[in-house]
């Protein structure tokens, strides 16, 4: 029994790594732009399709094509920020949500029209490989996603701490007006932040392709989990997203073990309870939930 529970816990943590990876971009964008991107899941979907087509048309392994996918998503982020997000930065929260929901509907159905609703999956030698560590079994693809999530969070941290643009991003997140007064080009910070957030979900998409089939609404499932994760970790809090990912991964693994039919309901209930009791999330700063709504 102990061995089974340990296996469930390990699966949960590995799954959490995947969730964390999707959530980091979302939380970064919220922390700086104060916009919740409801189309984040569709960015993931685009990344997964890109990864899939690079594999099936050119035989590129999803891990090999990761740079291309990330570059593509960076550009997608730039374009979307310029066309859709920038005009609504000062609009009310309702309007921001409406615009990104509109974007989500648009991208999802564009995929449906052009790619059909078929599930497509990539079959690489690694996608089903398993390594054993003592009594525990670890899926290689999941392990990779987990390690990359850790590495990406570390790199992002270094980037935000050490580089000029990283400092500018943190500065803008703290206080838009002050940053503007210090001569920071806010417009450019927003553009770069949104593109980086999209590129991060590009990484997630590339790493998920060997694990999950891709279809037009694949983003909806993951984005709901990502919302749960980022709110749990405190919106705008990067380490919070990482920890939140692990917590939700564990919650899902254990509820999947004990009450399989209700595993999704369990984490949504956790989500609602956290929002109602501590809307700033477990690791968020008090008051964060009210910032950026004007």
């Amino acid at each position, binding site marked *: 029994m102990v061995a089974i529970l340990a296996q469930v816990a390990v699966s949960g943590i590995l799954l959490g790594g995947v969730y964390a990876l999707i959530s980091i971009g979302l939380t970064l964008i919220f922390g700086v732009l104060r916009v919740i991107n409801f189309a984040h899941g569709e960015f993931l979907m685009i990344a997964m399709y890109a990864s899939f087509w690079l594999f099936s048309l050119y035989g590129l392994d999803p891990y090999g094509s990761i740079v291309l996918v990330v570059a593509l998503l960076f550009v997608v982020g730039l374009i979307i920020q310029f066309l859709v997000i920038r005009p*609504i930065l000062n609009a009310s929260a309702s309007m921001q949500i409406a615009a990104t929901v509109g974007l989500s509907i648009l991208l999802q159905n564009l995929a449906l029209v052009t790619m059909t609703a078929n599930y497509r999956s990539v079959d690489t030698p690694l996608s089903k490989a398993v390594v054993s560590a003592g009594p525990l079994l670890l899926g290689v693809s999941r392990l990779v996603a987990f390690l990359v999530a850790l590495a990406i969070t570390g790199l992002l941290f270094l980037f935000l701490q050490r580089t000029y643009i990283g400092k500018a991003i943190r500065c803008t997140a703290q206080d838009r007006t002050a940053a503007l007064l210090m001569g920071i080009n806010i417009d450019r910070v927003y553009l770069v932040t949104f593109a980086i957030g999209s590129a991060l979900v590009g990484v997630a998409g590339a790493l998920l392709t060997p694990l999950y089939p891709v279809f037009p609404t694949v983003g909806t499932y993951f984005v709901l989990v990502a919302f749960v994760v980022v709110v749990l970790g405190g919106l705008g809090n990067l380490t919070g997203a990482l920890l939140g990912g692990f917590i939700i991964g564990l919650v899902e693994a254990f509820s999947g073990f004990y009450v399989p039919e209700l595993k999704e309901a369990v984490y949504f209930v956790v989500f609602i309870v956290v929002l109602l009791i501590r809307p700033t999330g477990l690791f968020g700063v008090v008051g964060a939930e009210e910032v950026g*709504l004007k």
Partner: protein
Amino acid sequence: MSATTRSEGSMFSAYRFIPHGSLHALAGLAVVAAVLAFTVKDKFFLHVLIMMLLYASISSAWNIVGGFAGQLSLGHAAFFGIGAYTSTLLFIDLGISPWFGMVIGGALATLVSGAIGYPSFRLRGPFFTLVTIAFAEVVRLLTLYAQGLTRGSIGISVPFRPAVGNFIFRQHSAYACVALAFLVLTVLVGLWIQNSRLGYYLAAIREDEDAAQALGIDAARYKLVAVLISAFLTALGGTFYAQYIFYIEPFQTFSLDFSVLLAMMAIIGGLGTVWGPVAGAFLVTPLQEALQAKLGGELQGLHLVVYGTVLIVVVILLPQGIVPSLAAWGKRMFGQREARPAASPKGGA
């Protein structure tokens, strides 16, 4: 009614009379729709008319919370589903007339909306929206789980037993009349709220909740009243849907897409105005039905591509929605015709 003093009186007392122009417009709309309901013989057009009236009603119901109170709910599918499932299960399992079941469903949705609304109205902006999404998901998952009661993912078919008492009609025009009555009801409720104290409180909360609180408006209480009314009316729409379509299942009935659709119609037409959701639904529904019927399975989702694009464009270019923009234009063109200030999204940094 108009003699109510400013300092006293319940939130439901009229602050001023409902403008006659709005009542005339509603009467005109009702006459046109009724004439169409009995003259149009083409099944498809009649179906489109019914769906237009139904969506206009539910979107208007959503607008009480989403527009008047400015709380963007994306969980209204839950109330719709509760209405649909309650009346249908009561009808099938206990033989209770859906007319009566509709009221019970509405009451149940009201109860649930209070239970979820009371704690979550503390949250603002995106946080409130996220909680409403999660709430609707939980309701959907529970419906799937409680197979013994709800038949799970198989869904429920409503048996075709036409009778007025069964809320099942042979004639489509009868459905159109019921939908029209529903629309008249929701628009009247909207007009009444807008011109009552409640409406003014809600507008104040929408524009600046802190300022409204500082002026002594109990924001939590009035937002709660708004969601109770909204949930009741939305659930009525659920019953109508079940009785008209004859089939309900959890994935569609409780879907996030449906919640989004309601919000989208109101936003396109004009958030927080009485006529906005009606105009939005009248524009969007024929497009949806026509594209779905024309293209069918071939280019599935094309109408949603159009929706998404329209939604983004409206938010960026006409953030007030179509109705207020037209009203402003009309005012400029024709002088002093009265137009109520619309839900202006908070502008400026």
